[in-house]
């Protein structure tokens, strides 16, 4: 299953609610303000037990976060995002 999260983890509970119900082989894509969860050292960075995390590269670049990206978060371009969506028939948007 694929999850998208589009809200900052500091101002909203969307990411926490998503991670709480994620299965180990799920995939989480951080988009729009969701990418703020991917900053290294931020207090809401998902732990090592979290599912595979991606951040949409355009949203990361737009917000000036490319130099601050945490290890373990993979950058995803739009084509890659479409590919992931095709691979996962079930998608949940957290917003």
């Amino acid at each position, binding site marked *: 299953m694929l999850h998208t999260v589009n*809200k900052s983890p500091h101002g909203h509970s969307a990411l926490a609610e998503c991670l709480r119900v994620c299965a180990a082989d799920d995939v989480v894509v951080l988009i729009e*303000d969701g990418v*703020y969860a991917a*900053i290294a050292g931020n207090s809401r960075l998902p732990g090592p037990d979290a599912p595979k995390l991606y951040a949409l590269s355009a949203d990361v670049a737009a917000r*000036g976060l490319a*130099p*601050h990206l945490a290890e373990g978060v993979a950058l995803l371009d739009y084509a890659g995002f479409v590919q992931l969506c095709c691979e996962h028939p079930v998608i949940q948007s957290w917003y």
Partner: protein
Amino acid sequence: MSKRFLIVCRQPPYGSSFAREALDMALACAAFEQRVALLFLGDGVLQLAGAQQAEAIGQKPLDKQLGALPLYDVDALYADADALAARGLSDTTLALPVQALDGAGIRALLTEQDIVLGF
């Protein structure tokens, strides 16, 4: 008569129009020769991240527009130190120089104002 305006920015830069509205308000206040300061709280500190390439999502980079504020004599910029730390940012990596304040500093700043506008 000149008044002390404080513009409180609490939202991240691109997910909504709050950040741009706050900037417009700051520039309007400055154009009318008011004394303007900006305070970045909570997710608002995310507006200050450097090297924003907002063209990637079809928007104008907010950090560059904030950087123009000193040209309009708006150079009192303050940020919540705890909010920066919680978000993995430090005042050395920001797009423009701001004064980082703790809770007591923020309270003191708020009490000095004639008008406080929240965004």
